[in-house]
């Protein structure tokens, strides 16, 4: 089938313009994408965005000389979400902060990934019973890797980054993927 920009197979299936746009954006040339992903996996740029305690361990201590995130090429902490690939949700998301977390995520360019670090980001953690806490980052945004711990060690965060790298590069077959 001749796939050109004008004659995309999806146009034969539906008339929904937004869906057509979405599919055109998502479907890429597979071999090229593999090379891209290989490169992406080795140069993830995290968003310099800390919420609570985990930010000290996940962003500061991992960047510090002891653990040194730059050995992997991930040290480029961008303060602007427009330049970041990975969002490290490090800390408790409260109801007041939730809209901003979503907005930051939406501002990040595709493709983007999210690591939920610590109990709070996974499920609200110690504060799950509170009146003002969002029970988990995945209630707001899709999460790729969960790092249990309160707070996890910097090595555990490095491990999560490497797991994310494997996922980005397609090295792992995700079991029971939905």
């Amino acid at each position: 089938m001749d796939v050109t920009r004008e004659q995309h197979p999806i146009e034969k299936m539906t008339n929904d313009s937004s869906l057509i746009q979405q599919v055109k954006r998502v479907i890429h040339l597979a071999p090229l994408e593999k090379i891209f992903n290989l490169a992406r996996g080795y140069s993830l740029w995290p968003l310099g965005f800390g919420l609570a305690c985990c930010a000290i361990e996940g962003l500061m201590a991992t960047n510090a000389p002891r653990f040194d995130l730059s050995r992997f090429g991930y040290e480029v902490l961008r303060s602007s979400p427009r330049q970041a690939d990975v969002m490290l949700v490090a800390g408790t998301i409260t109801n007041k902060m939730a809209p901003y977390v979503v907005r930051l995520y939406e501002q990040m360019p595709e493709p983007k990934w999210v690591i939920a670090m610590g109990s709070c980001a996974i499920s609200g953690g110690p504060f799950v019973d509170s009146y003002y806490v969002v029970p988990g980052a995945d209630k707001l945004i899709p999460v790729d890797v969960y790092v249990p711990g309160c707070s996890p060690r910097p090595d555990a965060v490095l491990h999560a980054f490497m797991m994310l790298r494997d996922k980005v590069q397609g090295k792992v077959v995700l079991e029971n993927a939905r």
Partner: protein
Amino acid sequence: MPGSSIPSTVIDGLKDKFPAIEVSENLTITVPEAELLSFMRELRDNPDYDFNFLTNLTAVDYPDNFTVIYNLVSFKYGYTLMAKVNLGKDEPAVSSLTSLWGSADWQEREVYDLFGIIFTGRHNLTRILLEDGFAGYPLRKDFQWVGGRE
């Protein structure tokens, strides 16, 4: 602990000036709401006490009443003092101390935010921690909420 609590002679002097105050065993002073501002002004301005530092301001929701607690420190003498004001359950209001101590500003806003106690005679009494549209006052005992546990 040395120099921690206020000597009883000073308390006696205060009692003479403000007969309405009650002093408990551990030298906690309960002040009627009407006299709070003048009592606090006396504590701050009288050189015998010189309570220049309002360290803590909070409230408790007791079954019968709200209690606002003030912790004062005098840097000059090292005295500390705990003062309490009891307020009624419906529409609790107390006069603000922002004219005396700047540190009362944010702490009063916090108490307003979490307890719904109105501080009269001050500007900008808005919620500080929660967002403006939040319903209810979470630290009241009758506050109902749903947690996020699965």
